């Protein structure tokens, strides 16, 4: 006897995750995504009976497994999955000593799955383990019509759902440009370069406006692994050693950034959002193609399909990368660049400031000020 109550399709475009929800059980369309095998292999849910022992969760052995954990392919029940997911984030936070009691922390919130789950998990852990943190949602409005306006609506709903204050900082306010205007001038290909530079600064400025010196972002393990591969493929010696740093804080920078989801798989974040029925916005940015990053992402997804642990393995490798010690440049201390306008180069030291806006910059003028 069939026992359907609801029957609808959900779709997460980025993961190409397609399935149905039947009696609150998520069933993946197998041919589309074989790595996630859920409760049943067919869409027919039979009448309840005693759970077969072989179908029990591999951790608690007392509830029915409803999923295979993408990270290690363990069969887990919903309760155990949510518990281990949160516990692992808590372990990361405590092991890396990310926060201190009484600290105000801004959560970089875009309305997407990562930042929504981050807000939900941070709120849960802050209450459960009494971190004593003051959490604030901080959003950036890049000015992309049809994308950011819709996702900001989600963030506004999150504000009410999690009871956190929300601050929205827009590119228009800060730079007098929206991303739509920038793309109209420069074309779509370099849009992410501009947006990345502006967003980083906008987050810092938004946090400082609130008197906050610590931002947490929803960068996940897949993002970290992708960055390791990209830094290798681009030969980025300046970044290779810190590709997977959980916290970044430049000398002289007033704002620290942390990534509590450093070891959390993207697929698990989606599943967590699903099981906890979180409200998130799942459309990709209109200008997102990012050709080269896209190729690295495809490679990573292929590698993950062959060996699920490869995401963590890449992070592990990234943590081991060390550059050979560089020989001292001859006369390094004596050479100084004198520019055409008579000013003297500050050198490439950490902690320099932009001459126009005063923001942290390795050059005389920061990248955000150059276009203006």
């Amino acid at each position, binding site marked *: 006897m069939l026992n359907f109550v609801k029957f609808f399709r959900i779709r997460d475009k980025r993961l190409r995750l397609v399935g149905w929800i039947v009696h609150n059980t998520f069933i993946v369309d197998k041919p589309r995504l*074989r790595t996630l095998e859920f409760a049943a292999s067919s869409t027919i849910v039979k009448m309840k009976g*005693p*759970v077969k*022992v*072989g179908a*029990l*969760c591999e*951790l*608690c*052995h*007392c*509830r029915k497994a409803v999923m295979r954990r993408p*990270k*290690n392919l363990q069969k*887990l*029940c919903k*309760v*155990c999955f949510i*518990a*281990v997911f949160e*516990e*692992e984030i808590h*372990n*990361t936070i405590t*092991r890396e000593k990310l926060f201190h009691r009484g600290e105000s922390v801004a959560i970089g919130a875009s309305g997407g799955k990562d930042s929504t789950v981050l807000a939900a998990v941070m709120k849960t852990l802050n209450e459960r383990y009494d971190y004593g943190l003051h959490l604030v949602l901080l959003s950036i409005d890049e000015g992309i019509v049809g994308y950011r306006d819709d996702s900001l609506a989600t963030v506004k709903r999150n504000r009410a759902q999690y009871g956190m204050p929300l601050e929205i900082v827009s590119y228009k306010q800060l730079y007098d440009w929206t991303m739509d205007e920038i793309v109209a001038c420069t074309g779509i290909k370099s849009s992410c370069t501009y947006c990345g530079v502006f967003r980083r600064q906008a987050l810092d400025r938004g946090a400082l406006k609130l008197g906050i010196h610590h931002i947490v972002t929803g960068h996940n393990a897949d993002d970290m692994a992708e960055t390791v*591969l990209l*830094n*290798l*493929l*681009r*030969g*980025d*010696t300046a970044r*290779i050693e810190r590709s997977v740093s959980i916290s970044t804080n430049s000398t002289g920078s007033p704002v620290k950034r942390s990534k509590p989801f450093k*070891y959390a798989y993207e697929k698990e974040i989606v599943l967590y959002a699903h099981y906890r029925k979180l409200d998130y916005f799942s459309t990709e940015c209109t200008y997102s193609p990012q*050709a*080269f990053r896209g*190729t690295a992402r*495809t*490679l990573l997804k*292929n*590698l993950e*399909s*062959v*060996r699920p*642990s*490869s995401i*963590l*393995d*890449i992070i*592990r*490798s*990234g*943590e*081991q*990368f*060390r*550059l*050979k*010690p560089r020989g001292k440049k001859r006369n390094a201390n004596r050479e100084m660049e004198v520019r055409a306008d008579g000013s003297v180069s500050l050198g490439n030291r950490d902690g320099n400031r932009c001459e126009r806006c005063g923001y942290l910059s390795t050059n005389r003028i920061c990248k955000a000020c150059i276009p203006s």
Partner: protein
Amino acid sequence: MELYGMCSGEQEDLCGRCRKHATIVVSRKEHFCKDCFLKFIRVKQRKQMKGDLYKVKFGKSEDEIKNKTVNLLFPFLFTQSSLVLADALIYWLKEQVSMSSKAHVGFYLTIFFLGLDKPLENVKQCMSSLESRYGGAEMLEELHISFTLADGDTFISSNGSQEYLVSTANEAFCINENVPKLKTLHEFFSNIGNPSSKEYFMDIVKDLIIGDYCLKKHFSHVVLPYSMSELAISTLSYTVGGSGERIGAVIGSKTREENSNTFDFLYPLRDVLQYEIEKYTDLCGTSGFVNENKGNALKSVRSKSMNELIGGYFGSIQGEYPEAVSTVVKIASKLSGPPNKKDFKKCQICHNVVLDDPERWINGLTVLEGVPPSNEEEIENLRRYKESSFAKEKECIPKDAERVTICYGCMVAIKSTGSSCLYWPTFV
């Protein structure tokens, strides 16, 4: 970027170097005729081997310069790159002895044929084809080139066998008693079902056999036949396999230490791209000497190995981002290897330094405790589980299993075999 087939002899199709012959290959935006292209590749090889060590030696008699001449080991790995390096080295030696009546070879070359899972017949066939191509045994002797066949089977069977296990809690165990003895390399490799793990362990066996031969025959200089593209694949492969620290040791360093002996490892083809390798063997007519498996295009993504996926990736971006391969190798050469201090533990399998206790690292990231039962039904389920065969069968580590240290790369490769166990020859 290749130009297939012969070009017409029009002005614009002339070789950019000699301006005499028709262009046969276009590589790195430059037009080459056959001779100029072969020279272009050989110069790249010689650039990597520059210095007095391999230079032509002059002396009235052979004995005079014998002590100055280095013994060079070249493991022939049955790849197109191996054919190119063999050709380039032999050509170089021929050139050296023909310089003057007092000229002698700059190095004594031993070509070590390492077939691993290749049938012995194919290995022997390739050896004899190469011998006859380069003027026969007499000519090779004159150039001080010797051919040696690596006997992987003896290497495996002369040692005992061990079984390595990795538990779900990521603990590594080794069983020494009652382990079926491995007799052939083929048997050893056929025990490993996962193609990525097989590749990983094949590389380790290859390194161990080369290292063992170097120690036994007192070789301190080795040239490895890897092209730039193959080195880029290895770099990403180490990264993806969790052995990032090995990149610096293998690709970034020119020396390796083994049993307190130092070996010089060179990659003479590290500036040569794979399509140039293929074109070179085509032009030399040696491409048929080795049979490389090229059926990858037909495989599905899930049945490919890591190296095949990475190789396919580089192939797919070659058109739009041709600099990616050289960039990866360049950055790999800037990475440092793990510190080789005596107090560091070494992996029982690959003999490399083990950094940051892999077991502790991975267990720190994964919670393996579930939520206890909270109602009658769940308590009943747990009771049924405990009584079932599932609980009894669940991972049983033999009592005589010994806890051992293995590196992260080996741990991941063993876990990926499916059975989480590996039969491994007891290398000393």
